[in-house]
Each structure stands twice: as C-alpha cells, then as structure tokens.
C-alpha cells in the first residue's frame, strides 16, 4: 500500500503558496517574491496518530481562475489547500465558485480553505469582509498554523479511507 498523498496548493498569484510549503518543508521564510512557474514538487513525511504519511506536495503557479489550472496537475489529488491573501480582496472575491468547481470535479479529495499572511491583518475586520468559511488563518512568516494545516489534512486522510 502506498501511504503517499498528493497534496496540491492552489490560489492566486502571490498569496503565499510557495512560502507556506517552504515553511512546512524546510522551516524557512523569505520576504522576496519569486513567482512559481509551472509546478514545483516537494515532499515531506509526517506522522499522524502514530501513522506515517508521505506528502508529495505540488506547488502550482498562481492562477486567478482555478479552471485555468492544468487538469493534469489536479487529477489524483488527495488534498487541496485553497489559499487566499486577505490583504487583497481580488484573491477571494470568487472563492465560492472556485471551491465549488474543485468540489464538483474532485469530489473525493479533501479541501481546506486557508487565509495566509494573517500577520498582516486584523482578523475580526477581515471576517466582516468575507462571507465564506475559512478553515485556517496561517502565516508563513511567523509559522502560525502552518504545521496544523498539514496535520489536519493528514487526519482527514486517515479518517476518510
């Protein structure tokens, strides 16, 4: 049995997908912005409830429309993280239809909605501006909740098999 899981981060440009992954995999963060082109694949092994899981993480290039993402990058995914940047409303105005698209096309995959860069915002104020449930508020910069989102995915995988 393979206990590897394909995990894919999607979202607009510059929301912090690469930063979240780098924080999770190598525990580093940088302020400079290097646009991801195509796809970059990284890997990390974690342990959830005493079970070893290998995450093969696909860091996709940002797209302002999830339907424009290459299908072959999405198929076979066990867990999606849909990442938004709460400091830029353009990254979440369409979140509802974006998530709906992912859910209808990849019904068996787990999905978490993530608002990154929480270090830059007032969470209460932000919640007034968005009427869609956000699962986690993270910061790749301060590490806040980064481990947690991957653990949560791991738990969901184990409970759902």
């Amino acid at each position, binding site marked *: *049995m*393979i206990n590897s899981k394909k995990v894919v981060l999607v979202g607009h440009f510059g929301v912090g997908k690469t930063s979240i992954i780098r924080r999770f995999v190598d525990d580093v963060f940088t302020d400079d912005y290097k646009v991801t082109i195509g*796809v970059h*694949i990284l890997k990390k092994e974690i342990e959830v409830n005493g079970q070893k899981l290998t995450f093969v993480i696909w860091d996709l290039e940002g797209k302002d429309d999830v339907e424009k993402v290459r299908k*072959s990058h999405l*198929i076979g995914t066990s867990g999606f993280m849909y990442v938004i940047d709460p400091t830029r409303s353009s990254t979440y105005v369409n979140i509802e239809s974006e998530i709906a698209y992912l859910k209808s096309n990849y019904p068996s995959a787990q999905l978490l909605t993530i608002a990154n860069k929480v270090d830059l915002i007032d969470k209460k104020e932000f919640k007034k501006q968005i009427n869609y449930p956000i699962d986690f508020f993270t910061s790749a910069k301060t590490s806040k909740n980064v481990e947690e989102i991957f653990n949560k995915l791991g738990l969901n995988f184990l409970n759902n098999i």
Partner: protein
Amino acid sequence: MTDSEKLVKLKQLLLNEDRDFALQILQKLESVEKTLNEEELLSEKVNPIIDKKIETFADEIPSKLGPTITEALKIQIRDSQDQVVEALFPIIGKMIKKYIQQEMKNLSESINSQVQSTFSIKKWKRKFKSFFTGVSEESIILSEMAKPNVEQVFIIEKGSGLLIANVSKSQENIDKDMIAGMLTAIKSFVEDAFTKEEQSLELIQYELYNIYIQNMSSYYVAAVISGSFNTEFKDELEDKILDFASKHKKEKLVEDSKVTNKLIESLFND
C-alpha cells in the same frame, strides 16, 4: 689709451660679446638641428610628450568612447548575427572536437588497458569473436561498453504521480517520490502542449540517460537507460513491460511490493 685704441677695445668688447652670443646661438641651432635630424634624439624628446598624451587619452577612453564603442559593437553584432555565429562556430567547434578527442583518447586508453590486462574467458571469447567475424577486438569492446542498460525502473501511478515502486541498480540519494512527481508533471506538460489526439510522451533524453516511458491504463513505467538506446532494445523492453503488466493489476503492484520489485528486476538485462 688713445681714442682709436679705445675704439678698438670697445669694438673688441662688443664683438666678443656678439661672437659669444652668436656662438651660443649657433650651438643651440646645431643641437636643435641634430635633434631634429636624428630620429633617436628627437624621439627621446618627443616620446615622453606623446606618451603622456596617449596615457590621458587611454584613461579617457572608457568614459568618453566606451559607451559609443559598446553601442556600436552591439549594433554590429545584432545586425550581423550570422557573421558572428560564423566567426564563433569554428572556435566552439574546435573546442568540442578537442574535448571529444580527449574523451576518445581516454576511452581508447581504457580499452587498451582492458585488452592488455584482462586474462579472462571474456577476453578469449572476444578474441575468437574477433577472429571469426573480422571485427577488431577494440570495436567489440566499444560496442559492449555502449550497450544499453536499464539502470533504474519507476512504476508511477498516473494522475497523482505517486510512486508505486522503484528499483535501482545503484544507490543514489535522489528523492524517488519527487522524481516520480516531476516526471509525471513533465509528461503531462508535454502531452498537453505538443501532441494532438492520443499520443503520449515516450522518451526523455537526460544527459547521458534515456528515460523510456510506457503507459498502462492506470500507471506508467519509466525506465532509465544508460548506453545507446536503440529500437531493438526498445522492442525488447516494451515486450517485457507488456508481459509484466498483463500479469499484474495496479492494485496488486501497490499491495505486494515484494512481487513488484522482483518483477521490476526482471526488466534489468544481463
């Protein structure tokens, strides 16, 4: 002193002075003339001045002429790319040729040492083969060295790109899971971008290796091959993989890694 005497004395004095003066001038003139006429002497005088001029001029070139020259060169190169390529080509060609010559030399040295040092059955087999076929012993070794060889086999789930199984001849510290993912991403990229209809990527050349890809319905096999990949070898490999696939469903491969690894090993030749 009479008046006339005085006059003479005065004349003498005046003339003497004149004469001295004239003599001095004459000497100066002579030396100038000499300097002018004799190149060596002239250059002794003039060169430092010219040198100095040139020095300041040279100092100023970068700031004064630099940009202009660079610009001119840029334009020149841009407008005559063909010529530039033509000019560079032989140089690069020579470098490559030199490199290849060196490599061939190394190769032939290693062949020679192999021919000379080995006192083995293989050597006698080669000698016989050489004797009966008329092909030189070196050529036979050469072809033995370039023989295609499966070095590593990946079985990868389609879509997710997750590694189902992997067997490698040598120990390497590359991450197999990441390779499997990247291979899948490359494969899908090529298939999306360049092929119409139901074609698929079959071969990736990477440095000295060929990565041969064969699709099954829910997974694909990627074999990393060293040496010279040829059609004969490809057909053989294809048959082996198809044979292998017909015996085992993906589920079986995923469940029983021992069986899988044994089977992959059957793909390795020799």
